[in-house]
Protein backbone atom coordinates (compact mmCIF):
# COMPACT_ATOMS: atom_id res chain seq x y z
CA UNK A 1 0.00 0.00 0.00
CA UNK A 2 2.79 2.42 0.94
CA UNK A 3 4.58 1.68 -2.33
CA UNK A 4 1.73 2.83 -4.59
CA UNK A 5 2.19 6.12 -6.45
CA UNK A 6 -0.99 7.51 -4.85
CA UNK A 7 0.34 7.00 -1.33
CA UNK A 8 3.82 8.20 -2.23
CA UNK A 9 2.37 11.40 -3.71
CA UNK A 10 -0.16 12.17 -1.00
CA UNK A 11 1.88 11.38 2.15
CA UNK A 12 4.70 13.97 1.72
CA UNK A 13 2.28 16.68 0.54
CA UNK A 14 -0.20 15.93 3.33
CA UNK A 15 2.51 15.80 6.00
CA UNK A 16 4.23 18.98 4.83
CA UNK A 17 1.02 21.02 4.50
CA UNK A 18 -0.63 19.68 7.68
CA UNK A 19 2.54 20.14 9.71
CA UNK A 20 3.32 23.63 8.48
CA UNK A 21 -0.24 24.90 8.88
CA UNK A 22 -0.30 23.46 12.43
CA UNK A 23 3.09 25.07 13.26
CA UNK A 24 2.01 28.41 11.80
CA UNK A 25 -1.29 28.36 13.71
CA UNK A 26 0.36 27.36 17.01
CA UNK A 27 2.99 30.12 16.69
CA UNK A 28 0.38 32.66 15.62
CA UNK A 29 -1.88 31.69 18.52
CA UNK A 30 1.01 31.99 20.97
CA UNK A 31 1.97 35.45 19.63
CA UNK A 32 -1.64 36.69 19.64
CA UNK A 33 -2.16 35.31 23.15
CA UNK A 34 0.95 37.15 24.37
CA UNK A 35 -0.20 40.36 22.64
CA UNK A 36 -3.65 40.12 24.26
CA UNK A 37 -2.11 39.47 27.69
CA UNK A 38 0.26 42.44 27.18
CA UNK A 39 -2.71 44.64 26.25
CA UNK A 40 -4.65 43.45 29.31
CA UNK A 41 -1.58 44.13 31.49
CA UNK A 42 -1.22 47.61 29.98
CA UNK A 43 -4.87 48.45 30.70
CA UNK A 44 -4.42 47.00 34.20
CA UNK A 45 -1.39 49.24 34.75
CA UNK A 46 -3.44 52.20 33.53
CA UNK A 47 -6.16 51.37 36.07
CA UNK A 48 -3.50 51.07 38.81
CA UNK A 49 -2.00 54.40 37.77
CA UNK A 50 -5.47 55.99 37.75
CA UNK A 51 -6.11 54.68 41.27
CA UNK A 52 -2.78 56.07 42.50
CA UNK A 53 -3.52 59.46 40.93
CA UNK A 54 -7.09 59.47 42.29
CA UNK A 55 -5.90 58.76 45.80
CA UNK A 56 -2.96 61.19 45.68
CA UNK A 57 -4.87 64.11 47.15
CA UNK A 58 -6.34 62.00 49.93
CA UNK A 59 -2.87 60.61 50.70
CA UNK A 60 -1.32 64.07 50.84
CA UNK A 61 -4.01 65.16 53.26
CA UNK A 62 -3.72 61.89 55.17
CA UNK A 63 -7.49 61.48 54.69
CA UNK A 64 -7.68 57.77 55.45
CA UNK A 65 -11.49 57.56 55.37
CA UNK A 66 -11.69 59.14 51.93
CA UNK A 67 -8.82 56.90 50.73
CA UNK A 68 -10.52 53.76 52.04
CA UNK A 69 -13.75 54.77 50.30
CA UNK A 70 -12.01 55.27 46.94
CA UNK A 71 -10.33 51.84 47.22
CA UNK A 72 -13.64 50.18 48.21
CA UNK A 73 -15.54 51.81 45.32
CA UNK A 74 -13.00 50.95 42.64
CA UNK A 75 -12.61 47.46 44.07
CA UNK A 76 -16.32 46.80 43.55
CA UNK A 77 -15.95 47.21 39.80
CA UNK A 78 -16.69 44.09 37.78
CA UNK A 79 -13.55 42.11 36.99
CA UNK A 80 -11.47 43.53 39.86
CA UNK A 81 -10.45 40.53 41.95
CA UNK A 82 -8.48 42.43 44.57
CA UNK A 83 -7.34 45.97 45.24
CA UNK A 84 -5.07 46.78 48.15
CA UNK A 85 -2.43 49.22 49.30
CA UNK A 86 0.64 48.09 51.27
CA UNK A 87 2.77 50.35 53.34
CA UNK A 88 6.58 50.42 53.31
CA UNK A 89 6.76 47.42 55.69
CA UNK A 90 4.42 45.20 53.67
CA UNK A 91 1.32 45.63 55.87
CA UNK A 92 -2.00 45.99 54.07
CA UNK A 93 -3.33 49.41 55.02
CA UNK A 94 -6.27 49.67 52.62
CA UNK A 95 -8.12 46.91 50.79
CA UNK A 96 -11.39 46.17 49.08
CA UNK A 97 -11.60 43.17 51.39
CA UNK A 98 -11.73 44.68 54.89
CA UNK A 99 -10.57 41.42 56.52
CA UNK A 100 -7.15 41.76 54.84
CA UNK A 101 -6.32 45.08 56.47
CA UNK A 102 -3.42 44.76 58.91
CA UNK A 103 -2.06 41.53 57.41
CA UNK A 104 1.58 41.42 56.37
CA UNK A 105 2.50 40.11 52.92
CA UNK A 106 5.39 37.65 52.54
CA UNK A 107 8.19 39.30 50.57
CA UNK A 108 8.95 36.01 48.82
CA UNK A 109 5.55 35.79 47.10
CA UNK A 110 5.59 36.05 43.33
CA UNK A 111 4.41 39.66 43.11
CA UNK A 112 6.93 40.92 45.68
CA UNK A 113 10.03 38.97 44.60
CA UNK A 114 10.54 41.33 41.63
CA UNK A 115 11.99 43.95 44.00
CA UNK A 116 12.77 41.92 47.13
CA UNK A 117 15.42 39.58 45.71
CA UNK A 118 18.64 41.00 47.15
CA UNK A 119 19.52 42.34 50.59
CA UNK A 120 18.15 45.73 49.67
CA UNK A 121 14.86 46.05 47.77
CA UNK A 122 15.05 47.62 44.32
CA UNK A 123 13.85 51.22 44.22
CA UNK A 124 12.66 51.07 40.62
CA UNK A 125 10.54 48.24 39.19
CA UNK A 126 10.69 47.39 35.47
CA UNK A 127 7.33 47.57 33.71
CA UNK A 128 7.22 43.85 32.82
CA UNK A 129 8.00 42.94 36.44
CA UNK A 130 5.00 44.93 37.65
CA UNK A 131 2.74 42.25 36.18
CA UNK A 132 2.30 38.64 37.20
CA UNK A 133 -0.28 35.95 36.64
CA UNK A 134 -1.52 33.39 39.14
CA UNK A 135 -4.57 31.37 40.18
CA UNK A 136 -6.10 32.61 43.42
CA UNK A 137 -7.63 30.58 46.25
CA UNK A 138 -11.05 30.67 44.51
CA UNK A 139 -9.51 29.13 41.38
CA UNK A 140 -9.78 32.36 39.36
CA UNK A 141 -6.97 33.20 36.93
CA UNK A 142 -5.77 36.63 37.99
CA UNK A 143 -3.58 39.16 36.21
CA UNK A 144 -2.07 41.23 39.02
CA UNK A 145 -0.31 44.58 38.69
CA UNK A 146 1.82 46.23 41.33
CA UNK A 147 2.17 49.98 41.10
CA UNK A 148 4.81 51.51 43.42
CA UNK A 149 3.81 54.67 45.26
CA UNK A 150 6.99 56.73 45.08
CA UNK A 151 8.03 59.39 47.56
CA UNK A 152 7.61 62.91 46.20
CA UNK A 153 8.87 66.22 47.56
CA UNK A 154 5.31 67.06 48.52
CA UNK A 155 5.13 63.87 50.60
CA UNK A 156 8.18 64.63 52.70
CA UNK A 157 8.07 68.42 52.96
CA UNK A 158 4.49 69.09 54.04
CA UNK A 159 3.92 69.76 57.71
CA UNK A 160 1.35 67.04 58.23
CA UNK A 161 3.56 64.27 56.90
CA UNK A 162 6.20 62.15 58.46
CA UNK A 163 7.71 60.29 55.44
CA UNK A 164 11.48 60.52 55.43
CA UNK A 165 13.24 61.74 52.31
CA UNK A 166 15.30 58.51 52.32
CA UNK A 167 12.24 56.32 51.70
CA UNK A 168 12.16 56.02 47.93
CA UNK A 169 9.00 53.87 47.89
CA UNK A 170 6.24 54.68 50.37
CA UNK A 171 4.07 51.75 49.51
CA UNK A 172 2.56 49.66 46.78
CA UNK A 173 -0.81 49.50 45.12
CA UNK A 174 -1.74 45.94 44.12
CA UNK A 175 -4.64 45.35 41.76
CA UNK A 176 -5.80 41.98 40.42
CA UNK A 177 -7.95 41.68 37.32
CA UNK A 178 -9.99 38.56 36.56
CA UNK A 179 -8.60 36.94 33.41
CA UNK A 180 -11.85 35.07 32.73
CA UNK A 181 -13.05 37.25 29.81
CA UNK A 182 -9.54 37.19 28.31
CA UNK A 183 -9.39 33.40 28.63
CA UNK A 184 -12.84 33.11 27.01
CA UNK A 185 -11.69 35.27 24.08
CA UNK A 186 -8.55 33.15 23.75
CA UNK A 187 -10.58 29.92 23.82
CA UNK A 188 -12.92 31.29 21.13
CA UNK A 189 -9.92 32.33 19.03
CA UNK A 190 -8.39 28.85 19.53
CA UNK A 191 -11.55 27.07 18.31
CA UNK A 192 -11.83 29.39 15.32
CA UNK A 193 -8.20 28.73 14.41
CA UNK A 194 -8.66 24.96 14.74
CA UNK A 195 -11.72 25.09 12.46
CA UNK A 196 -9.86 27.32 9.97
CA UNK A 197 -6.83 24.99 10.03
CA UNK A 198 -8.97 21.90 9.47
CA UNK A 199 -10.82 23.59 6.59
CA UNK A 200 -7.50 24.68 5.02
CA UNK A 201 -6.12 21.16 5.38
CA UNK A 202 -9.20 19.50 3.90
CA UNK A 203 -9.18 21.93 0.97
CA UNK A 204 -5.44 21.68 0.32
CA UNK A 205 -4.98 17.92 0.72
CA UNK A 206 -8.40 17.19 -0.82
CA UNK A 207 -7.72 19.54 -3.74
CA UNK A 208 -4.30 18.03 -4.43
CA UNK A 209 -5.73 14.50 -4.11
CA UNK A 210 -8.68 15.31 -6.42
CA UNK A 211 -6.45 16.87 -9.07
CA UNK A 212 -3.95 14.01 -8.89
CA UNK A 213 -6.78 11.50 -9.08
CA UNK A 214 -8.43 13.15 -12.08
CA UNK A 215 -5.32 13.84 -14.13
CA UNK A 216 -3.01 11.04 -13.08
CA UNK A 217 -4.38 8.10 -11.11
CA UNK A 218 -7.54 7.38 -13.19
CA UNK A 219 -5.62 7.25 -16.53
CA UNK A 220 -2.81 5.37 -14.78
CA UNK A 221 -5.23 2.69 -13.55
CA UNK A 222 -6.68 2.41 -17.06
CA UNK A 223 -3.18 2.10 -18.48
CA UNK A 224 -2.31 -0.58 -15.94
CA UNK A 225 -5.49 -2.55 -16.76
CA UNK A 226 -4.77 -2.27 -20.53
CA UNK A 227 -1.15 -3.37 -20.18
CA UNK A 228 -2.08 -6.17 -17.77
CA UNK A 229 -4.43 -7.82 -20.31
CA UNK A 230 -3.13 -11.04 -21.89
CA UNK A 231 -3.86 -9.69 -25.38
CA UNK A 232 -3.55 -5.89 -24.97
CA UNK A 233 -4.49 -4.99 -28.55
CA UNK A 234 -7.08 -7.72 -29.03
CA UNK A 235 -9.12 -6.66 -25.99
CA UNK A 236 -10.07 -3.45 -27.79
CA UNK A 237 -9.29 -1.36 -24.74
CA UNK A 238 -7.58 1.91 -25.48
CA UNK A 239 -6.69 4.91 -23.36
CA UNK A 240 -8.53 8.00 -24.55
CA UNK A 241 -6.43 10.91 -25.81
CA UNK A 242 -6.40 13.98 -23.59
CA UNK A 243 -4.35 12.57 -20.74
CA UNK A 244 -1.11 14.14 -21.97
CA UNK A 245 2.02 12.05 -21.55
CA UNK A 246 0.02 9.05 -20.31
CA UNK A 247 -2.01 8.98 -23.55
CA UNK A 248 1.25 9.16 -25.52
CA UNK A 249 2.68 6.33 -23.43
CA UNK A 250 -0.46 4.25 -24.09
CA UNK A 251 -0.19 4.98 -27.81
CA UNK A 252 3.50 4.01 -27.87
CA UNK A 253 2.65 0.82 -25.99
CA UNK A 254 -0.15 0.07 -28.45
CA UNK A 255 2.19 0.64 -31.43
CA UNK A 256 4.87 -1.50 -29.82
CA UNK A 257 2.45 -4.37 -29.26
CA UNK A 258 1.08 -4.05 -32.83
CA UNK A 259 4.63 -4.12 -34.28
CA UNK A 260 5.50 -7.08 -32.09
CA UNK A 261 2.39 -8.89 -33.28
CA UNK A 262 3.21 -8.11 -36.94
CA UNK A 263 6.79 -9.31 -36.45
CA UNK A 264 5.55 -12.52 -34.83
CA UNK A 265 3.12 -13.11 -37.69
CA UNK A 266 5.83 -12.48 -40.32
CA UNK A 267 8.16 -14.78 -38.45
CA UNK A 268 5.49 -17.47 -38.35
CA UNK A 269 4.84 -17.01 -42.09
CA UNK A 270 8.59 -17.27 -42.84
CA UNK A 271 8.83 -20.41 -40.76
CA UNK A 272 5.88 -22.04 -42.51
CA UNK A 273 7.35 -21.07 -45.94
CA UNK A 274 10.69 -22.58 -44.95
CA UNK A 275 8.96 -25.76 -43.80
CA UNK A 276 7.09 -25.98 -47.14
CA UNK A 277 10.37 -25.58 -49.05
CA UNK A 278 12.09 -28.22 -46.92
CA UNK A 279 9.23 -30.73 -47.25
CA UNK A 280 7.57 -30.10 -50.67
CA UNK A 281 6.04 -33.64 -50.80
CA UNK A 282 4.10 -33.01 -47.56
CA UNK A 283 1.89 -30.48 -49.41
Amino acid sequence: MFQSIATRSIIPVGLAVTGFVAIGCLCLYSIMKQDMIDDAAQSGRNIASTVVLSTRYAMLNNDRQHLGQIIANIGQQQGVEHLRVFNHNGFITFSRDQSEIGQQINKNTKGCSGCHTGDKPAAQLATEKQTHRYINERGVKVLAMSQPIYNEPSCSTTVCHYHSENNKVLGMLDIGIDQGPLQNSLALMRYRMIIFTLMTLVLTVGGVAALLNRSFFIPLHKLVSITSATEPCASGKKLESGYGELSLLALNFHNLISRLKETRESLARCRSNDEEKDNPEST
Partner: protein
Amino acid sequence: MTSQDINRESSLADQRTALQESIRQLQARSYRGMWAIVAFACASVPVMLSEQILPPLTPEIKRMLGTPPSSNMISALLVVYAFSAILLVLGRITNASPKIVSFSHIGYLTCFYAFYYFSGVLSENFWAVLATGMTILSLESYHIWSLSIAQIREEEEKLVLLERRIKN
Protein backbone atom coordinates in the same frame (compact mmCIF):
# COMPACT_ATOMS: atom_id res chain seq x y z
CA MET B 1 36.10 -29.00 -10.68
CA THR B 2 38.87 -26.66 -11.86
CA SER B 3 40.49 -23.95 -9.74
CA GLN B 4 38.80 -21.35 -11.99
CA ASP B 5 35.40 -22.77 -11.07
CA ILE B 6 36.31 -22.75 -7.39
CA ASN B 7 37.40 -19.10 -7.62
CA ARG B 8 34.20 -18.21 -9.47
CA GLU B 9 32.06 -19.91 -6.82
CA SER B 10 33.88 -18.20 -3.96
CA SER B 11 33.53 -14.83 -5.73
CA LEU B 12 29.78 -15.38 -6.17
CA ALA B 13 29.45 -16.45 -2.53
CA ASP B 14 31.28 -13.26 -1.47
CA GLN B 15 28.95 -11.19 -3.62
CA ARG B 16 25.96 -12.90 -2.05
CA THR B 17 27.27 -12.22 1.46
CA ALA B 18 27.91 -8.57 0.52
CA LEU B 19 24.36 -8.22 -0.85
CA GLN B 20 22.84 -9.84 2.24
CA GLU B 21 24.90 -7.51 4.45
CA SER B 22 23.81 -4.51 2.36
CA ILE B 23 20.13 -5.54 2.71
CA ARG B 24 20.58 -5.90 6.45
CA GLN B 25 22.16 -2.43 6.68
CA LEU B 26 19.41 -0.90 4.56
CA GLN B 27 16.75 -2.51 6.77
CA ALA B 28 18.46 -1.04 9.83
CA ARG B 29 18.69 2.36 8.10
CA SER B 30 14.99 2.33 7.18
CA TYR B 31 14.14 2.53 10.92
CA ARG B 32 16.53 5.41 11.69
CA GLY B 33 13.83 8.02 11.10
CA MET B 34 11.52 6.24 13.53
CA TRP B 35 14.29 6.14 16.12
CA ALA B 36 14.76 9.90 15.69
CA ILE B 37 11.01 10.46 16.30
CA VAL B 38 11.16 8.29 19.43
CA ALA B 39 14.28 10.15 20.66
CA PHE B 40 12.59 13.52 20.10
CA ALA B 41 9.41 12.36 21.86
CA CYS B 42 11.53 11.16 24.80
CA ALA B 43 13.37 14.52 24.90
CA SER B 44 10.02 16.37 24.85
CA VAL B 45 8.53 14.56 27.86
CA PRO B 46 10.76 16.29 30.49
CA VAL B 47 10.30 19.58 28.61
CA MET B 48 6.51 19.20 28.87
CA LEU B 49 6.88 18.63 32.62
CA SER B 50 9.49 21.38 32.98
CA GLU B 51 7.26 23.53 35.21
CA GLN B 52 7.03 20.68 37.71
CA ILE B 53 10.51 19.19 37.50
CA LEU B 54 12.86 22.04 36.61
CA PRO B 55 13.64 24.70 39.20
CA PRO B 56 12.91 28.31 38.18
CA LEU B 57 15.93 30.23 36.97
CA THR B 58 17.57 32.21 39.75
CA PRO B 59 18.17 35.95 39.20
CA GLU B 60 21.95 35.27 39.20
CA ILE B 61 21.64 32.82 36.28
CA LYS B 62 19.31 35.22 34.47
CA ARG B 63 21.84 38.03 34.95
CA MET B 64 24.65 35.76 33.72
CA LEU B 65 22.71 34.75 30.58
CA GLY B 66 21.69 38.32 29.81
CA THR B 67 18.49 39.54 28.21
CA PRO B 68 16.69 36.66 26.45
CA PRO B 69 15.32 37.15 22.93
CA SER B 70 11.62 38.00 22.77
CA SER B 71 9.22 35.09 22.35
CA ASN B 72 7.91 36.61 19.09
CA MET B 73 11.42 36.61 17.67
CA ILE B 74 11.95 32.96 18.64
CA SER B 75 8.56 32.02 17.15
CA ALA B 76 9.40 33.82 13.89
CA LEU B 77 12.72 31.94 13.79
CA LEU B 78 10.87 28.65 14.47
CA VAL B 79 8.51 29.24 11.53
CA VAL B 80 11.46 30.10 9.22
CA TYR B 81 13.33 27.01 10.45
CA ALA B 82 10.27 24.76 9.92
CA PHE B 83 9.67 26.19 6.45
CA SER B 84 13.28 25.71 5.30
CA ALA B 85 13.62 22.26 6.89
CA ILE B 86 10.39 21.04 5.22
CA LEU B 87 11.56 22.44 1.87
CA LEU B 88 14.95 20.73 2.25
CA VAL B 89 13.34 17.38 3.09
CA LEU B 90 10.95 17.71 0.12
CA GLY B 91 13.98 18.50 -2.05
CA ARG B 92 15.75 15.38 -0.82
CA ILE B 93 12.59 13.32 -1.50
CA THR B 94 12.47 14.72 -5.06
CA ASN B 95 16.15 13.99 -5.73
CA ALA B 96 16.11 10.65 -3.85
CA SER B 97 19.11 11.91 -1.92
CA PRO B 98 20.53 9.38 0.56
CA LYS B 99 21.58 12.14 2.99
CA ILE B 100 20.14 11.61 6.49
CA VAL B 101 19.91 14.55 8.90
CA SER B 102 17.29 13.39 11.43
CA PHE B 103 19.37 13.53 14.60
CA SER B 104 20.75 17.03 13.99
CA HIS B 105 17.15 18.30 13.93
CA ILE B 106 16.70 17.01 17.49
CA GLY B 107 19.61 19.26 18.49
CA TYR B 108 18.10 22.33 16.78
CA LEU B 109 14.67 21.66 18.31
CA THR B 110 16.19 21.23 21.78
CA CYS B 111 17.82 24.66 21.30
CA PHE B 112 14.35 26.11 20.62
CA TYR B 113 13.06 24.50 23.82
CA ALA B 114 16.04 26.02 25.68
CA PHE B 115 15.46 29.50 24.24
CA TYR B 116 11.75 29.43 25.14
CA TYR B 117 12.66 28.17 28.63
CA PHE B 118 15.15 31.00 29.22
CA SER B 119 12.57 33.51 27.92
CA GLY B 120 10.03 32.10 30.39
CA VAL B 121 7.42 31.21 27.74
CA LEU B 122 8.09 27.50 27.24
CA SER B 123 4.65 26.31 28.34
CA GLU B 124 2.92 28.60 25.79
CA ASN B 125 5.18 27.50 22.91
CA PHE B 126 5.81 23.84 23.74
CA TRP B 127 3.21 22.51 21.26
CA ALA B 128 4.57 24.65 18.42
CA VAL B 129 8.08 23.16 18.84
CA LEU B 130 6.62 19.66 19.23
CA ALA B 131 4.55 20.06 16.03
CA THR B 132 7.63 21.37 14.19
CA GLY B 133 9.72 18.42 15.33
CA MET B 134 7.08 15.83 14.54
CA THR B 135 6.45 17.27 11.06
CA ILE B 136 10.11 17.50 10.06
CA LEU B 137 11.06 14.14 11.56
CA SER B 138 8.00 12.36 10.11
CA LEU B 139 8.82 13.67 6.63
CA GLU B 140 12.48 12.77 7.09
CA SER B 141 11.48 9.33 8.41
CA TYR B 142 9.16 8.73 5.46
CA HIS B 143 11.94 9.76 3.05
CA ILE B 144 14.51 7.45 4.67
CA TRP B 145 12.04 4.57 4.83
CA SER B 146 10.82 4.84 1.22
CA LEU B 147 14.36 5.28 -0.12
CA SER B 148 15.64 2.30 1.88
CA ILE B 149 12.72 0.11 0.77
CA ALA B 150 13.41 0.98 -2.89
CA GLN B 151 17.11 0.16 -2.44
CA ILE B 152 16.27 -3.09 -0.60
CA ARG B 153 14.10 -4.14 -3.57
CA GLU B 154 17.01 -3.44 -5.96
CA GLU B 155 19.40 -5.44 -3.81
CA GLU B 156 16.89 -8.31 -3.50
CA GLU B 157 16.52 -8.43 -7.29
CA LYS B 158 20.32 -8.55 -7.61
CA LEU B 159 20.38 -11.34 -5.01
CA VAL B 160 17.79 -13.37 -6.92
CA LEU B 161 19.86 -13.07 -10.13
CA LEU B 162 22.98 -14.05 -8.23
CA GLU B 163 21.27 -17.09 -6.69
CA ARG B 164 20.27 -18.19 -10.21
CA ARG B 165 23.87 -17.82 -11.41
CA ILE B 166 25.12 -19.84 -8.42
CA LYS B 167 22.58 -22.64 -9.12
CA ASN B 168 23.57 -22.78 -12.79
